[in-house]
Structure formats: C-alpha cells, structure tokens
C-alpha cells in the first residue's frame, strides 16, 4: 500500500506543491464541504500541546464533515505511563482514518508513519518539521504575489531557532528566490542552512540592519520573534531587542506588493500600528492555515 503520510514537503516537486496550492485556493473559495469526509474519523494526537495548530486542524476536519477524536495533554494519556509511541499509534490506528500528530521529539512523525498503514500528518515534530505551517506560508506568498518565482524574501529576527524560516527556505529552493537574512549575531542563520543555499545555488545576503531603507526592495517580510531566553549574552539581547521591531513608519518606501508575514503568536516584534497597513498579512496568513490543512487532510486520505 502506498503511504500517503505527509511528514515533510521539503522534497515535493513543483507540480506537487502547485496541486496543493490550487486545492488550498479551492477551499478558500468554499471552506465548507460537510459531506466530503462524512463517516471518516480524524485523530489529533497532541503529545505536545499547541492549541493554535490543533484548533486549526480540528476546524479543518469539522468543516469537511469528519468526526474528530484525540487528546492534547500528554499527562492524561498512557504515553506518560511509559507506553511507546509505536504502541499509541498502533492503538489509534484501529480507530482513525488519518492521524494528525504533534510531538516534542524530532523524527517522531516519520517513525509513526513507518509503524502504521494509516496516513500520518505531521503537525510539528520538535524543532524539525512542520509541513502545514510551510504550506500556509507558501500559499500566503503565492496568493499575495501571484507567483512563487523570483521573489525577494526578507527573513527577520530569530533565524537560528526559527523552524518556520528553515522550512520555508528549503521549500522555496525550486523558485529562484533571493533571501535576506536579517538577524543579530547570536541568532543568525545557522551555517548548515547557508551551506544548503550555496549547494542549491540560492542567493542570500546577511544583514544586521533593519530600517526603512534596508527593506525597500522586499516582496515578502517574514518576521519572527526575538526571545530573551535564546540569548546567552543578555547584554547583547538588551542591545538588539529593539532593532528587529517593525513599525508603521518603516513602511514608507516599501514596494506596493510587499506583504508582512509572521507565524504568530507575536509579542512586540510587529507594532500594533502596522496591523492597519495594507501590507500586513499575518492574520489572513493564519486563516490560510485552515484552507491549507483542509487540502492536506484530503491529500492524506487520497480524496481528489
């Protein structure tokens, strides 16, 4: 049997990505299909809590007419009593048609997909992969720019620990992007991803400054949170903490098509006054997550 699990989309071809984008667009036009998954059971196993991602997946399943089972708190499940992941997955496989799982350990979703015939959708495995987030990011770029090719993408903030920027970077490799990595020294893009860019022939520049001038030719401004606990040197944190904050008065010279993305939740890295700008797109981006997840659930179930 062909395994339809969606553990990673990093190796998807242009055609596979485009098909998912088209489907996501269809679900945006009409999110409600109450009979599409009638009689199906979707399991959401959140071994690590993530209310935002779980609500988005469960809403997607509900809008497609599926029944949802699952758990979110690892303390109430038997995995805290020493049951292996394999045994939990085998047990749930007896009940569900598709398993959406989030786990704190890296590689958990891939391993789960190897021990069951029920398709697994990876809703995040530690700091490793999070394909539904990547898919909604790609969709948001595609929708706002009309294409994925030849874009100037600025990634700002914590590029060291930011899983979403790493996944986005890899999934954009087939689209001839130019990346600007804007980060403080301590949180700059890890060498392995810069090496990846050089191997794949992806252009990138690294920048410390973040000003009205420096972002003037951006098509996409992908903001991330700079967290205090990520710094080993707190003096450095105090020095840079206000450098990577986007304010409305920095948008005066930016391109008309430029859109601001953020994986949310934000703290203070985007000032409230940016929310009213036509360039702000992060709330719609989060909403796109619902449509992208509807598309992913259908793909995992093999529904055209």
């Amino acid at each position, binding site marked *: 049997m062909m395994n339809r699990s969606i553990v990673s989309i990093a190796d998807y071809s242009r055609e596979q990505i485009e098909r998912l984008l088209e489907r996501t667009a269809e679900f945006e036009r009409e999110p409600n299909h109450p009979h599409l998954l009638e009689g199906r059971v979707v399991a959401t196993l959140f071994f690590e809590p993530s209310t935002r991602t779980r609500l988005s997946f469960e809403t997607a399943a509900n809008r497609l007419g599926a029944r949802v089972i699952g758990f979110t708190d690892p303390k109430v499940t038997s995995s805290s009593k020493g049951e*292996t*992941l*394999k045994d939990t997955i085998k047990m749930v496989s007896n009940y569900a048609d598709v398993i959406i799982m989030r*786990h*704190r*350990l*890296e*590689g*958990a979703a*891939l*391993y789960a997909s190897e021990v069951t015939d029920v398709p697994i959708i990876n809703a995040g*495995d*530690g*700091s*490793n992969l999070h394909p539904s987030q990547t898919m909604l990011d790609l969709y948001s770029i595609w929708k706002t720019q009309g294409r994925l090719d030849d874009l100037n993408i600025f990634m700002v903030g914590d590029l060291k620990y930011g899983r979403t920027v790493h996944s986005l970077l890899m999934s954009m490799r087939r689209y001839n992007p130019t990346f600007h990595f804007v980060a403080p020294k301590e949180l700059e893009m890890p060498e*392995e991803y810069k090496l990846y860019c050089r191997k794949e022939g992806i252009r990138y520049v690294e920048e410390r400054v973040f000003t009205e001038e420096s972002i003037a030719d951006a098509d996409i401004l992908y903001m991330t949170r700079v967290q205090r606990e990520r710094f080993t040197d707190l003096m450095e944190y105090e020095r840079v903490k206000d450098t990577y904050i986007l304010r409305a008065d920095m948008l005066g010279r930016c391109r008309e098509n430029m859109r601001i993305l953020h994986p949310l939740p934000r703290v203070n890295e985007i000032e409230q006054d940016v929310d009213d700008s036509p360039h702000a797109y992060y709330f719609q981006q989060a909403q796109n997550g619902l449509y992208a997840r509807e598309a992913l659930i259908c793909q995992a179930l093999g529904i055209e």
Partner: protein
Amino acid sequence: MMDTTKKSLQVAAIENGTVIDHIPTDKVFTIASLLQLDRCNDQVTIGNNLDSGRMGSKGIIKIANRFFSDAEISRLAAVCPNIRLCIIRDYEVVEKRIASLPDEFVGIVRCANPVCITNNEPMKTVFYVTDKEQGVVKCRYCGKEQNIEHIKLV
C-alpha cells in the same frame, strides 16, 4: 635485528583467521565489542599500546578461525573508517580487506541529538552516509548531520 624480531613477536601469529592491525589505541576495545569478541569461543588475542613505527602506538586484534562477512566489516567503518583486515590462511596473508563506509548504517550507531526519536523509543537507528570522504552521516529521523568521529555505538 634481534629487536625487530622481538617486536614482531609481541603478539603471537595465527594459522587461520583474521588480523586487524594498526588500530588506533582508543578504538581497540570498541572494535572488540562491535565484533562481539566477548562471546567468541575461538582464540582471540588483543594487543594494545604496542610500538608502531607508522603511528607511534597502536592496537592489534587477532581472531583465529573467524572470517567476517561484508556486513560485519562495514560495521567496523562506523568506528574506524578504512581500517584494514588481513585474512590469514596457513600463516600467510591471503587477502586484505578495507572497511570502507557503507551507504547506510542500520541499528549500529546512536544519534547525537538528545531530542531525536531514536534516543527515546525502542527502535533501530538509521544513518545515511552523506559524505564518505569526510565521514559525514545523517540521521534518517531527525535529519541531523554528524561526523562519524564523534558518534557512539548503540
């Protein structure tokens, strides 16, 4: 002349079997455990910290009447890439084999990433060798690349 003879006799010769020579001194016992020599009923000679012109100090393992499979030899590459094995028949070296890195290791080495699923589930590890020259391996599960030099056996 006398001296050389004495040195070459530091470890007794075997009639048939396998000799692994020029082992880095810190790898001798790892190799012995990888080959499960503690469970071997044939005559096993392990020498360590012996004089070696080439590398200063070395280890050597001689196993009588044992000939290792390709799979066993490629496992050795996980701890000691390019180590040489001499196949002995009738006191003569009849063949030399090199433990070169295979394309993948299954269930042999441990992932260095503590939050990798393989370190938290009773499961086999899988590593792909991504760079044979530099000895770089990549964990199938967490995707972390690591150097074979720093890797530990399961």
